[in-house]
Protein backbone atom coordinates (compact mmCIF):
# COMPACT_ATOMS: atom_id res chain seq x y z
CA UNK A 1 0.00 0.00 0.00
CA UNK A 2 1.25 3.47 -0.93
CA UNK A 3 0.37 5.97 1.78
CA UNK A 4 0.49 9.73 1.47
CA UNK A 5 0.06 10.79 5.06
CA UNK A 6 -1.03 14.44 5.37
CA UNK A 7 1.46 15.39 2.70
CA UNK A 8 2.04 19.08 1.95
CA UNK A 9 4.15 20.01 -1.05
CA UNK A 10 5.28 23.49 -2.01
CA UNK A 11 7.00 24.84 -5.05
CA UNK A 12 7.36 28.60 -4.99
CA UNK A 13 3.95 30.06 -4.18
CA UNK A 14 2.19 26.89 -5.32
CA UNK A 15 1.17 24.29 -2.79
CA UNK A 16 -0.47 20.89 -2.97
CA UNK A 17 -1.87 18.61 -0.31
CA UNK A 18 -2.57 14.90 -0.44
CA UNK A 19 -3.84 12.56 2.27
CA UNK A 20 -4.82 9.13 1.00
CA UNK A 21 -3.55 5.67 0.35
CA UNK A 22 -3.50 3.36 -2.59
CA UNK A 23 -3.66 -0.45 -2.59
CA UNK A 24 -0.62 -2.16 -4.09
CA UNK A 25 -0.99 -3.45 -7.63
CA UNK A 26 -3.53 -0.90 -8.82
CA UNK A 27 -3.25 1.27 -11.90
CA UNK A 28 -4.05 4.91 -11.28
CA UNK A 29 -4.56 7.78 -13.69
CA UNK A 30 -3.44 11.18 -12.37
CA UNK A 31 -5.57 13.75 -14.15
CA UNK A 32 -6.21 17.46 -13.84
CA UNK A 33 -5.53 20.81 -15.48
CA UNK A 34 -2.04 21.90 -16.50
CA UNK A 35 -0.27 23.62 -13.65
CA UNK A 36 -2.59 21.83 -11.25
CA UNK A 37 0.23 19.98 -9.57
CA UNK A 38 0.42 16.59 -11.31
CA UNK A 39 4.14 16.88 -11.85
CA UNK A 40 4.66 18.24 -8.35
CA UNK A 41 2.98 15.13 -6.94
CA UNK A 42 5.10 12.81 -9.07
CA UNK A 43 8.28 14.71 -8.21
CA UNK A 44 7.56 14.25 -4.52
CA UNK A 45 6.92 10.53 -4.96
CA UNK A 46 10.10 10.13 -7.03
CA UNK A 47 12.20 12.01 -4.49
CA UNK A 48 12.96 15.21 -6.40
CA UNK A 49 10.92 17.41 -4.10
CA UNK A 50 11.05 17.20 -0.32
CA UNK A 51 7.61 17.65 1.23
CA UNK A 52 7.01 20.54 3.61
CA UNK A 53 5.26 18.17 5.96
CA UNK A 54 3.74 14.71 6.03
CA UNK A 55 5.12 11.27 5.20
CA UNK A 56 5.19 8.94 2.23
CA UNK A 57 5.09 5.23 3.05
CA UNK A 58 5.30 2.11 0.96
CA UNK A 59 4.15 -1.15 2.58
CA UNK A 60 4.43 0.54 5.94
CA UNK A 61 8.02 1.66 5.43
CA UNK A 62 8.74 5.42 5.49
CA UNK A 63 10.36 6.43 2.20
CA UNK A 64 9.95 10.21 2.61
CA UNK A 65 13.66 10.93 2.89
CA UNK A 66 15.11 8.21 0.66
CA UNK A 67 17.15 9.41 -2.34
CA UNK A 68 15.48 8.94 -5.77
CA UNK A 69 17.58 5.89 -6.63
CA UNK A 70 16.79 4.16 -3.34
CA UNK A 71 13.01 4.35 -3.62
CA UNK A 72 10.92 1.32 -4.55
CA UNK A 73 9.92 2.90 -7.85
CA UNK A 74 10.91 3.59 -11.43
CA UNK A 75 9.90 6.68 -13.37
CA UNK A 76 9.54 7.39 -17.06
CA UNK A 77 9.78 11.10 -17.89
CA UNK A 78 8.15 13.00 -20.73
CA UNK A 79 11.42 12.88 -22.63
CA UNK A 80 15.11 12.22 -22.15
CA UNK A 81 14.59 8.74 -20.73
CA UNK A 82 17.60 7.29 -22.53
CA UNK A 83 21.30 8.16 -22.61
CA UNK A 84 22.02 9.11 -26.23
CA UNK A 85 25.58 7.78 -26.23
CA UNK A 86 24.70 4.32 -24.91
CA UNK A 87 23.20 1.46 -26.92
CA UNK A 88 19.71 0.11 -26.34
CA UNK A 89 21.14 -2.89 -24.48
CA UNK A 90 23.32 -0.64 -22.27
CA UNK A 91 20.44 1.72 -21.53
CA UNK A 92 18.26 -1.22 -20.56
CA UNK A 93 21.11 -2.85 -18.62
CA UNK A 94 21.31 0.20 -16.34
CA UNK A 95 18.10 -1.13 -14.84
CA UNK A 96 19.98 -4.15 -13.51
CA UNK A 97 23.23 -2.45 -12.45
CA UNK A 98 23.87 1.29 -12.29
CA UNK A 99 27.54 0.55 -12.99
CA UNK A 100 26.66 -1.64 -15.99
CA UNK A 101 28.56 -4.51 -14.40
CA UNK A 102 26.50 -7.22 -16.00
CA UNK A 103 27.04 -10.95 -15.76
CA UNK A 104 26.32 -13.22 -18.72
CA UNK A 105 23.07 -14.09 -16.98
CA UNK A 106 22.16 -10.38 -16.69
CA UNK A 107 22.84 -9.87 -20.39
CA UNK A 108 20.58 -12.77 -21.23
CA UNK A 109 17.84 -11.20 -19.11
CA UNK A 110 18.29 -7.87 -20.90
CA UNK A 111 17.89 -9.69 -24.23
CA UNK A 112 14.74 -11.46 -23.05
CA UNK A 113 13.07 -8.26 -21.84
CA UNK A 114 14.08 -6.36 -24.99
CA UNK A 115 12.48 -9.14 -27.01
CA UNK A 116 9.35 -8.96 -24.84
CA UNK A 117 8.93 -5.24 -25.56
CA UNK A 118 9.52 -5.80 -29.27
CA UNK A 119 13.10 -4.61 -29.67
CA UNK A 120 14.71 -7.87 -30.70
CA UNK A 121 17.74 -7.31 -32.90
CA UNK A 122 18.05 -3.63 -31.97
CA UNK A 123 20.29 -4.14 -28.92
CA UNK A 124 23.27 -2.43 -30.54
CA UNK A 125 21.41 0.65 -31.79
CA UNK A 126 21.62 4.06 -30.19
CA UNK A 127 18.48 6.00 -29.24
CA UNK A 128 18.93 8.44 -32.14
CA UNK A 129 18.53 5.52 -34.55
CA UNK A 130 15.22 4.45 -33.01
CA UNK A 131 11.69 5.71 -33.65
CA UNK A 132 9.82 7.46 -30.84
CA UNK A 133 7.87 4.30 -30.09
CA UNK A 134 11.03 2.20 -29.97
CA UNK A 135 12.63 4.69 -27.57
CA UNK A 136 9.60 4.35 -25.34
CA UNK A 137 9.96 0.57 -25.46
CA UNK A 138 13.64 0.77 -24.55
CA UNK A 139 12.87 2.97 -21.54
CA UNK A 140 10.06 0.61 -20.54
CA UNK A 141 12.45 -2.35 -20.81
CA UNK A 142 14.82 -0.66 -18.37
CA UNK A 143 11.97 0.03 -15.93
CA UNK A 144 10.91 -3.64 -16.16
CA UNK A 145 14.47 -4.83 -15.51
CA UNK A 146 14.66 -2.61 -12.44
CA UNK A 147 11.61 -4.51 -11.21
CA UNK A 148 10.58 -1.94 -8.60
CA UNK A 149 7.04 -2.36 -7.28
CA UNK A 150 5.90 1.15 -8.29
CA UNK A 151 6.03 2.64 -11.78
CA UNK A 152 5.51 6.37 -12.33
CA UNK A 153 4.65 7.44 -15.87
CA UNK A 154 4.91 11.21 -16.41
CA UNK A 155 3.29 11.32 -19.85
CA UNK A 156 6.16 9.34 -21.32
CA UNK A 157 4.36 8.65 -24.59
CA UNK A 158 2.90 12.14 -25.05
CA UNK A 159 5.02 12.78 -28.14
CA UNK A 160 3.62 9.73 -29.93
CA UNK A 161 0.53 9.65 -32.11
CA UNK A 162 -2.78 8.45 -30.58
CA UNK A 163 -2.64 4.92 -32.02
CA UNK A 164 0.97 4.35 -31.00
CA UNK A 165 0.31 5.85 -27.58
CA UNK A 166 -2.58 3.46 -26.98
CA UNK A 167 -0.38 0.59 -28.13
CA UNK A 168 2.42 1.62 -25.76
CA UNK A 169 -0.01 1.91 -22.85
CA UNK A 170 -1.41 -1.54 -23.57
CA UNK A 171 2.12 -2.92 -23.67
CA UNK A 172 2.95 -1.17 -20.40
CA UNK A 173 -0.22 -2.49 -18.76
CA UNK A 174 0.60 -6.02 -19.91
CA UNK A 175 4.29 -5.94 -18.97
CA UNK A 176 3.84 -4.14 -15.66
CA UNK A 177 1.02 -6.40 -14.47
CA UNK A 178 1.13 -6.59 -10.68
CA UNK A 179 3.06 -3.33 -10.32
CA UNK A 180 1.46 -0.23 -8.86
CA UNK A 181 1.37 2.23 -11.74
CA UNK A 182 0.64 5.97 -11.63
CA UNK A 183 0.04 7.48 -15.05
CA UNK A 184 -0.11 11.23 -15.57
CA UNK A 185 -2.38 11.90 -18.52
CA UNK A 186 -4.36 14.65 -20.20
CA UNK A 187 -6.61 12.28 -22.05
CA UNK A 188 -9.78 10.95 -20.34
CA UNK A 189 -10.03 8.11 -22.85
CA UNK A 190 -6.50 7.08 -21.98
CA UNK A 191 -7.36 7.17 -18.27
CA UNK A 192 -10.34 4.88 -18.83
CA UNK A 193 -8.38 2.52 -21.00
CA UNK A 194 -5.42 2.15 -18.69
CA UNK A 195 -6.44 2.75 -15.12
CA UNK A 196 -8.73 1.32 -12.45
CA UNK A 197 -8.62 4.40 -10.25
CA UNK A 198 -8.12 8.10 -10.86
CA UNK A 199 -6.58 10.83 -8.74
CA UNK A 200 -7.87 14.30 -9.57
CA UNK A 201 -5.22 16.97 -8.99
CA UNK A 202 -6.74 20.45 -9.01
CA UNK A 203 -7.04 23.56 -6.84
CA UNK A 204 -4.08 22.62 -4.68
CA UNK A 205 -5.42 19.22 -3.68
CA UNK A 206 -4.60 15.75 -4.94
CA UNK A 207 -7.92 14.02 -4.22
CA UNK A 208 -8.17 10.48 -2.93
CA UNK A 209 -8.26 7.84 -5.68
CA UNK A 210 -11.72 6.91 -6.91
CA UNK A 211 -12.86 4.51 -9.66
CA UNK A 212 -12.03 6.15 -12.96
CA UNK A 213 -15.33 5.46 -14.80
CA UNK A 214 -17.72 7.11 -12.33
CA UNK A 215 -15.37 10.08 -11.87
CA UNK A 216 -15.33 10.81 -15.59
CA UNK A 217 -19.04 10.10 -16.03
CA UNK A 218 -20.00 12.51 -13.29
CA UNK A 219 -17.06 14.90 -12.94
CA UNK A 220 -16.75 17.41 -10.10
CA UNK A 221 -16.72 21.08 -11.22
CA UNK A 222 -12.92 21.42 -11.48
CA UNK A 223 -12.67 18.34 -13.70
CA UNK A 224 -15.74 19.28 -15.74
CA UNK A 225 -14.21 22.68 -16.49
CA UNK A 226 -10.95 21.02 -17.51
CA UNK A 227 -12.70 18.49 -19.74
CA UNK A 228 -14.82 21.24 -21.28
CA UNK A 229 -18.14 19.72 -20.22
Amino acid at each position, binding site marked *: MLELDRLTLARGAFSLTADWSLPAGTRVAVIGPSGGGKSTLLDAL*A*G*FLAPLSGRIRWQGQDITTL*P*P*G*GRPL*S*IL*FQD*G*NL*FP*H*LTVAQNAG*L*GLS*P*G*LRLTAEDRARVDVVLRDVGLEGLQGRRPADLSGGQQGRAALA*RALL*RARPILLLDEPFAALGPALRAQMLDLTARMAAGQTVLLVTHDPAEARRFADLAVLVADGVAAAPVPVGPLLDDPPPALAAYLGL
Partner: protein
Amino acid sequence: MLRPFVRPADFALPVTVMVNALLALPFAVRVLLPGAQALAGQDRLCATLGLQGWDRARLVTLPRLARPLGFAAGIAAALAMGDLGVIALFADEGGATLPLAVSRLMGAYRMEAAAGAALLLVALSFALFAVFDGVGRRAGT
Protein backbone atom coordinates in the same frame (compact mmCIF):
# COMPACT_ATOMS: atom_id res chain seq x y z
CA MET B 1 62.57 36.74 -1.72
CA LEU B 2 62.55 32.96 -1.34
CA ARG B 3 66.06 32.57 -2.64
CA PRO B 4 67.59 31.83 0.78
CA PHE B 5 65.25 28.86 1.18
CA VAL B 6 64.73 27.32 -2.24
CA ARG B 7 66.27 27.30 -5.68
CA PRO B 8 63.85 28.88 -8.16
CA ALA B 9 64.87 26.36 -10.81
CA ASP B 10 63.43 23.55 -8.68
CA PHE B 11 60.01 25.12 -9.10
CA ALA B 12 60.28 25.83 -12.80
CA LEU B 13 58.17 22.87 -13.88
CA PRO B 14 55.28 23.06 -11.39
CA VAL B 15 55.01 26.85 -11.66
CA THR B 16 55.08 26.71 -15.47
CA VAL B 17 52.42 23.99 -15.50
CA MET B 18 50.23 25.90 -13.08
CA VAL B 19 50.46 29.23 -14.88
CA ASN B 20 49.77 27.65 -18.25
CA ALA B 21 46.80 25.75 -16.86
CA LEU B 22 45.39 28.97 -15.42
CA LEU B 23 45.88 30.75 -18.75
CA ALA B 24 44.00 28.02 -20.61
CA LEU B 25 41.22 27.76 -18.02
CA PRO B 26 38.84 30.40 -19.46
CA PHE B 27 39.04 28.81 -22.89
CA ALA B 28 38.50 25.34 -21.48
CA VAL B 29 35.46 26.51 -19.51
CA ARG B 30 33.98 28.12 -22.60
CA VAL B 31 34.52 24.94 -24.61
CA LEU B 32 33.09 22.61 -21.95
CA LEU B 33 30.10 24.72 -20.97
CA PRO B 34 27.52 23.68 -23.62
CA GLY B 35 28.22 20.00 -23.09
CA ALA B 36 28.08 20.35 -19.33
CA GLN B 37 24.75 22.16 -19.56
CA ALA B 38 23.33 19.42 -21.76
CA LEU B 39 24.47 16.88 -19.18
CA ALA B 40 22.61 18.70 -16.43
CA GLY B 41 19.40 17.79 -18.28
CA GLN B 42 20.04 14.18 -17.33
CA ASP B 43 20.54 14.77 -13.61
CA ARG B 44 17.13 13.32 -12.79
CA LEU B 45 17.57 10.30 -14.98
CA CYS B 46 20.90 9.55 -13.29
CA ALA B 47 19.35 10.08 -9.87
CA THR B 48 16.43 7.71 -10.38
CA LEU B 49 18.74 5.03 -11.73
CA GLY B 50 21.06 5.39 -8.75
CA LEU B 51 23.84 6.37 -11.13
CA GLN B 52 26.36 8.38 -9.10
CA GLY B 53 30.01 8.90 -8.28
CA TRP B 54 32.54 7.08 -10.40
CA ASP B 55 29.87 5.06 -12.24
CA ARG B 56 28.27 8.27 -13.42
CA ALA B 57 31.61 9.79 -14.43
CA ARG B 58 32.62 6.64 -16.28
CA LEU B 59 29.33 5.91 -18.05
CA VAL B 60 27.86 9.36 -18.61
CA THR B 61 29.99 12.42 -17.87
CA LEU B 62 33.32 11.47 -19.45
CA PRO B 63 31.94 9.83 -22.62
CA ARG B 64 29.61 12.73 -23.28
CA LEU B 65 32.30 15.36 -22.62
CA ALA B 66 35.11 13.51 -24.39
CA ARG B 67 35.00 15.65 -27.52
CA PRO B 68 35.05 19.06 -25.81
CA LEU B 69 37.60 17.74 -23.31
CA GLY B 70 39.92 16.73 -26.14
CA PHE B 71 39.37 20.05 -27.88
CA ALA B 72 40.06 21.97 -24.66
CA ALA B 73 43.21 19.94 -24.03
CA GLY B 74 44.34 20.70 -27.59
CA ILE B 75 43.82 24.43 -27.06
CA ALA B 76 45.66 24.29 -23.75
CA ALA B 77 48.56 22.42 -25.36
CA ALA B 78 48.84 24.90 -28.21
CA LEU B 79 48.66 27.82 -25.79
CA ALA B 80 51.36 26.29 -23.62
CA MET B 81 53.59 25.72 -26.65
CA GLY B 82 53.54 29.42 -27.38
CA ASP B 83 53.92 30.56 -23.80
CA LEU B 84 56.67 33.14 -23.39
CA GLY B 85 55.78 34.45 -19.96
CA VAL B 86 56.81 32.06 -17.25
CA ILE B 87 59.58 30.31 -19.06
CA ALA B 88 61.56 33.52 -19.49
CA LEU B 89 61.82 33.68 -15.70
CA PHE B 90 63.44 30.28 -15.37
CA ALA B 91 65.13 29.23 -18.56
CA ASP B 92 68.91 29.27 -18.83
CA GLU B 93 71.01 29.22 -22.01
CA GLY B 94 70.69 25.50 -22.55
CA GLY B 95 67.02 25.00 -21.62
CA ALA B 96 65.15 27.51 -23.74
CA THR B 97 61.74 26.75 -25.21
CA LEU B 98 60.92 27.46 -28.83
CA PRO B 99 59.19 30.83 -28.26
CA LEU B 100 62.12 31.94 -26.15
CA ALA B 101 64.54 30.75 -28.81
CA VAL B 102 62.58 32.67 -31.44
CA SER B 103 62.70 35.86 -29.42
CA ARG B 104 66.41 35.44 -28.66
CA LEU B 105 67.17 34.83 -32.33
CA MET B 106 65.16 37.90 -33.26
CA GLY B 107 66.98 39.87 -30.59
CA ALA B 108 70.21 38.85 -32.25
CA TYR B 109 68.87 39.93 -35.67
CA ARG B 110 69.11 36.38 -36.99
CA MET B 111 65.75 36.70 -38.72
CA GLU B 112 66.03 33.66 -40.98
CA ALA B 113 66.85 31.35 -38.10
CA ALA B 114 64.01 32.92 -36.10
CA ALA B 115 61.58 32.30 -38.96
CA GLY B 116 62.64 28.67 -39.12
CA ALA B 117 62.15 28.19 -35.40
CA ALA B 118 58.77 29.94 -35.58
CA LEU B 119 57.66 27.63 -38.38
CA LEU B 120 58.66 24.62 -36.30
CA LEU B 121 56.73 26.09 -33.37
CA VAL B 122 53.58 26.56 -35.44
CA ALA B 123 53.80 23.03 -36.84
CA LEU B 124 54.33 21.49 -33.40
CA SER B 125 51.46 23.46 -31.91
CA PHE B 126 49.10 22.35 -34.65
CA ALA B 127 50.24 18.76 -34.31
CA LEU B 128 49.73 18.73 -30.54
CA PHE B 129 46.29 20.28 -30.94
CA ALA B 130 45.34 17.73 -33.58
CA VAL B 131 46.49 14.83 -31.40
CA PHE B 132 44.47 15.90 -28.34
CA ASP B 133 41.41 16.81 -30.39
CA GLY B 134 41.64 13.51 -32.26
CA VAL B 135 41.84 11.49 -29.04
CA GLY B 136 38.73 13.29 -27.76
CA ARG B 137 36.85 12.65 -30.99
CA ARG B 138 37.71 8.99 -30.97
CA ALA B 139 36.71 8.56 -27.31
CA GLY B 140 33.48 10.49 -27.80
CA THR B 141 31.91 8.53 -30.64
